[in-house]
């Protein structure tokens, strides 16, 4: 083991709200931040907040955020001594981890070998057998011909799910319900895998039709100690993209929690894991099945931080600097309940179609037990190049029911103007009895909201006396000199925030 390795300047190979999250951790630790960004991300919150910035390439992620060489070169050019990959993009790319280390910098994340062992879904399944964790029946062979995959899908029995082996975040995943639609869906998953992760390799598994998505947060330190930081439930998903997450899960008994936690720790230990990682399981009929291991920080890490009172990003950085000891298992006791809602730039009333454009303004209602992880502010552009998640709203309260109520209230007061968001959809889901009673499965959205809010007659959408009266009143306010249109402001993407006409309120 090496001794204390000081980190003075950390490069962030990511964008959006996670880049902001890492910058916050850097500031608290007295580390300078260097943001590695694409040409499209010059006017974003992280860009303004970072101590230094290096442009690493064009908007297309393949040429910037997914380009190992460009990221390493950018980090070196910025004088960084360490690199944090955030989540998505290159965060689970062992080649990137090695390239960072080969270039003489510290990798903030698990060792490259552990990424390969646990992160690649095919080798992880072998690891899982050693760790004696149950798995779902499937096919993970090297023969990737469509015909073979269709035959294997039929053997497993429909419904079957096809997934990109290098994937995550819902991309490259499809549910196949019949043999007839299998070839096209498999080909589509292969294309998405190639486009998003640079590999067309897919695998198949039995699709459990009323399972809950439960994931265990693990953390290993550089001395080899691993603890589990309880679980999160992320059953509310659409197209395999998580929408609402919470900690702890309302569905686990203490015995099941311990069994899953210990299985996750065994798996991490077998992989010689270090730093933050997540072991995802499906839970159906009180039986759990290993799904995959994510060898990185998760989008939904804040709910774990809220109930356990820890800071996972700082822990990652300190561990990389060899200045961290993992929390002893017995010290990790959850208190209260935390919920996270992902705010996506999409039209809730049009089946969740992406909505792009310039943000006119946002208002996030601060208060006790509320946390807003925000990547874009007024004046910033929501572009079609990247993930549509623009912010996360996290609340904590003493019980699950109070946390749900708090989230409803916070979302009611949250304002995003300039792009459509899924806020109305989130509120409908939070109010659904299956959710409030904690009975939701991964089928929740598909069963109750198959077209989002597009098909139903929603009270929240209807205009009433109040909204009409407000609109006519507001119009008089706007015409009374409040308009401050600028001939330059909307054109110049490199303007500084203090000269922007698009000020946050």
């Amino acid at each position, binding site marked *: 083991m090496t001794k204390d390795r000081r980190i003075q300047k950390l490069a962030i190979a990511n964008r959006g709200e996670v880049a902001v999250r890492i910058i916050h951790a850097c500031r608290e630790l007295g580390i300078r931040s260097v943001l590695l960004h694409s040409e499209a991300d010059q006017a974003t919150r992280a860009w303004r907040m970072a101590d230094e910035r290096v442009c690493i390439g064009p908007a297309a992620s393949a040429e910037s955020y997914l380009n190992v060489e460009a990221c390493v070169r950018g980090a070196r050019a910025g004088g960084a001594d360490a690199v944090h990959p955030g989540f998505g993009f290159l965060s689970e790319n062992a080649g990137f981890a090695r390239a960072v280390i080969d270039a003489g910098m510290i990798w903030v994340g698990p060792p490259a070998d552990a990424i390969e062992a646990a992160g690649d879904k095919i080798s992880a399944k072998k690891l899982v057998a050693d760790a004696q964790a149950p798995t779902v029946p499937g096919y993970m062979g090297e023969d990737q011909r469509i015909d073979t995959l269709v035959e294997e899908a039929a053997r497993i029995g429909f419904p079957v799910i096809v997934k990109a082996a290098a994937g995550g975040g819902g991309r490259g995943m499809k549910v196949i319900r019949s043999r007839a639609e299998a070839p096209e869906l498999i080909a589509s998953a292969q294309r998405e895998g190639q486009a998003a992760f640079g590999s067309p390799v897919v695998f198949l598994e039995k699709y459990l039709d009323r399972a809950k998505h439960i994931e265990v947060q693990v953390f290993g330190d550089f001395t080899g100690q691993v603890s589990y930081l309880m679980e999160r439930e992320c059953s509310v998903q659409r197209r395999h993209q998580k929408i609402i997450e919470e900690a702890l899960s309302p569905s686990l008994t203490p015995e099941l929690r311990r069994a899953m936690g210990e299985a996750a720790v065994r798996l991490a230990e077998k992989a010689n894991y270090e730093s933050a990682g997540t072991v995802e399981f499906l839970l159906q009929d009180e039986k759990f099945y290993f799904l995959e291991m994510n060898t990185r920080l998760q989008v939904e890490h804040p709910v774990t931080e809220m109930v356990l009172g820890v800071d996972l990003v700082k822990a990652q950085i300190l561990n990389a600097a060899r200045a961290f000891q993992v929390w002893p298992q017995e010290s990790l006791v959850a208190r209260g309940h935390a919920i996270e809602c992902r705010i996506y730039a999409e039209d809730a009333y049009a089946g969740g179609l992406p909505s792009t454009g310039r943000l006119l303004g946002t208002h996030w209602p601060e208060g006790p037990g509320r946390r807003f992880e925000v990547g874009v502010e007024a004046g910033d552009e929501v572009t079609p190049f990247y993930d549509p998640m623009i912010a996360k709203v996290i609340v904590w309260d003493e019980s699950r029911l109070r946390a749900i109520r708090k989230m409803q209230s916070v979302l009611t007061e949250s304002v995003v103007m300039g792009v459509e968001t899924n806020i109305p959809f989130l509120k409908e889901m939070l109010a659904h009895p299956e959710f409030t009673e904690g009975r939701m499965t991964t089928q929740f959205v598909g069963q109750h909201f198959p077209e989002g809010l597009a098909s139903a007659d929603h009270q929240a959408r209807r205009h009433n006396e109040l909204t009409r009266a407000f609109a006519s009143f507001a119009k008089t*306010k706007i015409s009374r000199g409040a308009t401050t249109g600028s001939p330059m402001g909307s054109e110049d993407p490199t303007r500084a925030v203090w000269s922007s006409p698009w000020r946050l309120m």
Partner: protein
Amino acid sequence: MSSTMQAIEFEFEGRRYKGFVASQGSETWYHVDGRTWKEATSTRRRVGGQGKASALEDPRVVKAPMPGKIVKLMKAVGAEVGAGEVVVVMEAMKMEYTLKSAAEGRVAEILCAVGEQVSLGAELVRLEVVV
């Protein structure tokens, strides 16, 4: 013309509300009582109605419902298409979306190419109804 979002104190039927308003180009955005919506400032548009937009659209034309890239064309000119059948696969924000035909017919014209970046509302495929 555009304006920063501004907060507005508003009283209605004896209750006080904090609302917000912002305008940009031909759009004005409002927020009050947990509701955010936009209205066209200049042109008349359907606002907050219950009718489906597709009812007003020509079912023989498949349009891009969002800006994005064309990934795959499922039909060639002259091919027969059933209602609800996938005609085009698009990618936007790293997700693939399948665009289905609203009508039954035959492909008359393909107005886009694989790999092309298309804008919102762009006409992608035109069908002719087979009698």
